[in-house]
């Protein structure tokens, strides 16, 4: 809402009040004032002049030479380039020494040899934005009304010496979508009274409106109150300059007196009005009903709209003539030839208007106000105010009587000016909620500033909240009013008194922090990527579950239309981004949710899982003067995870060769972990498929995606001390020639099973492949450490077990001890 400071002065005495200070005061008590703008910013020295003579310029076709009366002793000779300049006009004159926007200083000059003592201004040159101008105003100089006082300040005449406060209203303060509401707010802050417009209508009693028109609301139609007046003999012409000035200050384009008056009252009372050309209402009837499905309707803006059954229309008994609360129709629009009008002031259901406006993508000054519910008590007041203004400024004859109807009896009661909500509240409740110690007297002052009638019964207030404050319905709403007018700054600072609580992170939260902290300590960078992504990038890593991806109903773009079911594509994108900027070594991780569709996607939330994604590409360590950088391989990557797992206390890990789409089939592992009796899959680690790497222009890149919940479940915190060995160990090495298809992990697990009670550790210290060993064979050298905690083992028993085990391995895997 743009609030003209000058207009506001009609209602509240603002003498000696600085607009900027007022704005600060308003902001500090609940309505943010985004800006305070002087309309004449950078303009001075413009007066109203009368063009006495206009001649063609002797040497230039497009220029005119004028003689202008600016109220001084002599006429000024001014050269003008506008085609619409003519003798007899009143126009704004920038005198010698005047300044126009853009620091444009007017000096005495010669145009094609003819002296010019100033400039005739267009509206645009006076800083009036184009959107507020009519076609002719855009093209030429601004022609002022014939009664404009010659020689006086044009800025004042055009209301440009005004300041405009831009109110950024929160949804609850729709009462300030009107000057009326703003006046009460400002008056409360300044502790001043409000002067409301004094409306007097002289009705023409020779006719009765109710004889001319019938008004009805169809049973279910969400119109709560419809009132109308008939005004005859209107003359459609421009509205008075002061009214136009105020509309422009508020951001509405002046059109004609009739339309401007409805808009003026809309701004003043917050009540949208509509003027129909009565002669175009064919059936002497106004009927509010729901639209029919597929009903076509041409709105004022000339657009044909297809309506549906959720929308409300005003009809003339047959055809729709307005889209209730949103916009009028073209067919019944007021224009220059209109001479009688039906003036509508109604209260439509906010939800219906909101839905219609949303469906049609059509918001108007009216719909914005109806959406937030208008004041029931102002419907008729606004109707009368507009009728009086039409009589005054459009020469109208107001036919006697208001034709109106209500949805039900309650709505009739609400329309009564005196109906106010009564809310009960105690001093104690106020003070307990705020932590203040306000007395009844202090609170009474606040009610009176708000102009709420209140009665004190002991410690209890009965407060009458006028209908203009639609937002105040509960005791807590009154407490807020007390708080903001008392001043939030004056509320003391205290600490919660109740029971003391122990704050702590949960086990899961601690482990997650350790996980992230450990990765950072190992040289990984934590990233954050978007959850919303495009289906295409997700396809390379298909969703594991069978219920597919989670898709937005109305995405803003294809790029952000589905929820990710894997973190890996986003990590690849981040790697590419960095590679494109010569940052070749990328080692990143993210802990974030992935989203899997569920069977019952309409009613059930997607399956949200917290995953750890990792990506590493480039070299092992930053490039160094001492040697060439070494590219990472699978085992560098795996080692990083092994360190992490160890740090988190994960044991009993099972690594298995695995195949997953998007991964290198020979360099991918599934890692699982024993939890209790069962085995849970942690996730997949491996190299990106070479095709992927090529497509993404990446060198060898390793990625992993692990379930954080499984990590958390498998992680152990706390330490149980193990006694240090008292007896020496015996070490035995063995090199086995194995088929390449036999995984080392299988051999180790089998070995452990065979000699487990004696062996302390088994470690691979060499892997060797050679043609001489045979096709698809390799030699793996193991180092075994034999030890038991309670005694020294003898060579003999170790040898016996060792070679017995080797024999079994031979039987099981065809493993041959290498000579």
């Amino acid at each position, binding site marked *: 809402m743009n609030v003209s400071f000058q207009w506001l002065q009609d209602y509240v005495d603002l003498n000696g009040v600085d607009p900027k200070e007022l704005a600060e005061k308003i902001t500090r008590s609940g309505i943010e004032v985004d800006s305070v703008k002087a309309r004449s910013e950078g303009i001075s020295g413009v007066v109203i002049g009368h063009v006495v003579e206009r001649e063609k310029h002797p040497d230039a076709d497009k220029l005119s030479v004028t003689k202008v009366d600016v109220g001084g002793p002599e006429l000024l000779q001014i050269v003008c380039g506008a085609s619409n300049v003519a003798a007899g006009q009143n126009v704004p004159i920038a005198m010698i020494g005047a300044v126009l926007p853009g620091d444009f200083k007017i000096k005495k000059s010669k145009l094609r040899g003819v002296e010019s003592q100033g400039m005739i201004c267009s509206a645009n040159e006076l800083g009036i934005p184009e959107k507020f101008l009519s076609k002719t105003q855009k093209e030429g100089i601004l022609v002022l009304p014939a009664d404009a006082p010659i020689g006086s300040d044009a800025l004042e005449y055009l209301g440009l010496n005004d300041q405009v406060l831009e109110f950024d209203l929160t949804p609850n303060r729709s009462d300030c979508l009107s000057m009326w509401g703003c006046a009460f707010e400002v008056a409360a802050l300044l502790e001043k009274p409000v002067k409301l417009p004094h409306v007097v209508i002289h009705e023409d009693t020779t006719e009765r409106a109710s004889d001319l028109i019938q008004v009805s609301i169809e049973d279910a139609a969400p119109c709560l109150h419809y009132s109308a007046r008939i005004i005859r003999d209107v003359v459609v012409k421009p509205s008075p300059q002061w009214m136009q000035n105020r509309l422009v200050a508020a951001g509405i384009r002046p059109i004609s007196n009739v339309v401007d008056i409805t808009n003026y009252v809309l701004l003043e009372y917050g009540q949208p009005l509509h003027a129909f050309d009565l002669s175009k209402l064919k059936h002497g009837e106004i009927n509010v009903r729901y639209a029919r499905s597929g009903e076509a309707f041409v709105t004022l803006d000339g657009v044909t709209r297809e309506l549906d059954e959720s929308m409300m229309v005003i009809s003339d008994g047959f055809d729709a003539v307005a889209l209730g609360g949103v916009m009028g129709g073209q067919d019944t629009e007021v224009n220059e030839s209109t001479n009688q009008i039906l003036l509508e002031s109604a209260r439509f259901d906010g939800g219906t208007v909101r839905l219609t406006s949303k469906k049609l993508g059509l918001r108007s000054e009216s719909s914005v106000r109806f959406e937030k519910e208008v004041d029931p008590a102002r419907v008729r007041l606004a109707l009368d105010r507009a009728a009086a203004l039409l009589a005054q400024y459009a020469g109208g004859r107001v036919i006697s009587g208001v034709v109106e109807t209500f949805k039900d009896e309650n709505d009739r009661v609400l329309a009564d000016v005196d109906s106010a909500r009564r809310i009960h509240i105690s001093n104690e409740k106020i003070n307990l909620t705020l932590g203040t110690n306000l007395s009844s007297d202090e609170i009474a002052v606040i009610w009176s500033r708000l102009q709420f009638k209140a009665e004190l019964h002991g410690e209890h207030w009965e407060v009458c909240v006028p209908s203009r404050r639609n937002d105040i319905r509960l005791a807590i709403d009154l407490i807020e009013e007390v708080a903001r007018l008392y001043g939030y*700054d004056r509320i003391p600072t205290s600490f919660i008194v109740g029971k003391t609580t122990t704050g702590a992170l949960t086990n899961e939260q601690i482990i997650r922090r350790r996980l992230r902290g450990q990765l950072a300590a190992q040289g990984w960078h934590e990233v954050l990527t978007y*959850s919303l992504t495009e289906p295409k990038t997700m396809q390379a890593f298909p969703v594991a579950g069978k219920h597919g991806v989670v898709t937005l109903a109305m995405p803003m773009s294809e790029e952000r239309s589905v929820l990710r079911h894997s973190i890996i594509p986003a990590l690849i994108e981040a790697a590419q981004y960095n590679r494109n900027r010569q940052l070749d070594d990328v080692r990143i991780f993210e802990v974030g949710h992935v989203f899997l569709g569920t069977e019952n996607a309409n009613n059930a939330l997607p399956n949200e899982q917290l995953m750890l994604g990792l990506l590493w590409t480039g070299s092992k360590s930053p490039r160094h003067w001492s040697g060439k950088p070494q590219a990472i391989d699978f085992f560098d990557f795996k080692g990083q995870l092994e360190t992490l797992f160890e740090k988190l206390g994960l044991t009993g890990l099972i690594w298995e060769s695995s195949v997953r789409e998007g991964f290198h089939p020979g360099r991918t592992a599934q890692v699982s972990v024993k939890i209790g009796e069962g085995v849970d899959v942690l996730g997949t680690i491996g190299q990106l498929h070479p095709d992927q790497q090529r497509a993404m222009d990446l060198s060898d890149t390793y990625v992993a995606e692990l379930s954080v919940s499984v990590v958390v479940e498998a992680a152990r915190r706390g330490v149980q001390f193990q006694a240090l060995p008292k007896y020496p160990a015996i070490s035995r090495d063995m090199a086995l020639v194995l088929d390449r298809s036999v995984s080392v992990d299988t051999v180790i697990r089998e070995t452990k099973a065979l000699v487990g009670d004696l062996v302390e550790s088994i470690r691979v210290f060499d892997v060797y492949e050679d043609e001489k060993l045979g096709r698809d064979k390799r030699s793996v050298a193991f180092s075994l450490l034999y030890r038991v905690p309670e005694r020294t083992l003898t060579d003999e028993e170790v040898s016996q077990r060792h070679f017995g085990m080797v024999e079994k391995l031979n039987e099981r895997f065809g493993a041959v001890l290498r000579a």
Partner: protein
Amino acid sequence: MKERLVSLQNAALAELEDVANPQELNEVRVQYLGKKGALTEILRGMGQLSAEERPVIGQLANDVRAAIEGALAELQTKFDAEETNRRLAQEKIDVTLAGRAPETGTLHPLNWVIQQVEDIFVGMGYIVAEGPEVERDYYNFEALNLPKNHPARDMQDSFYITDEILLRTHTSPVQVRTMEKMHGEVPVKIICPGKVYRRDNDDATHSHMFTQIEGLVIDKNVRMSDLKGTLLQFVQEMFGPETQIRLRPSFFPFTEPSAEVDVTCCMCKGNGCRVCKQSGWLEILGSGMVHPRVLEMAGYDPNEYTGFAFGMGVERIAMLKYGVDDIRHFYTNDLRFLRQFAHD
């Protein structure tokens, strides 16, 4: 024999004077003191000496050995010193060359800020509560006093998946879920961090996905002054002990009274600068007393219990704290950006 020993000593000492390196020194050692050396050779004749002569010669032999050993040791020390000096000269390195530093990892600045905020509130007795990012309309809106078609829903334009399921627009649904789980028990003291989503075009100050932290307290006799006290303590721990707060009335459907909270500008300490647009204050929090309808819907009698809630945008705090000028930096994951947070 005595003469032989003396001349042996003299010969040895004379020879040592010409020794030039450790090898020659060793040769001399072997020649005179070795198992088959000259001294051993002489001492073999000890058996033929009389009982009176034996201790005298014995003593002399020991003195000779000591003299030769002493001379040998002296030379050895000299050669060792020379050797050391040579090595030291050889082994000199340029210590100004870069060390072999492993890559320093980093936590994401937003998560780092969340961690700091969590820690402050955990210290004040709060627990950290979490919830799903895809939510039911009920938890995200309705239970927060935002019924369907409520105009205030426009403040948070959202991404719907179905009519009833959407990406949460704030972390407040976690508050509702927590209250539900508590079944009317008090006190509730939680802090809820997490990602949220709104239909915004990404630009320097908007992001369709961003991060929030909200807090909620419910108990008997929780007052607005407690909210002020809590927030003051928080901002002083977060931004420094001189930081002050300023509350401005505002509107949120789920709190009443509601307040926007400004803190002393951390750039200029309140003197006015470009960042705070010369006001000395920065808006960083929304807060208020929990709306009675919200309490009621979650199973708390508003006549018996009151509460306060507050929320802040993590990006906003991180941008102010680190002077980051574009919100997109947080999600672009440029390593040159991330590496800057190694030492916060």
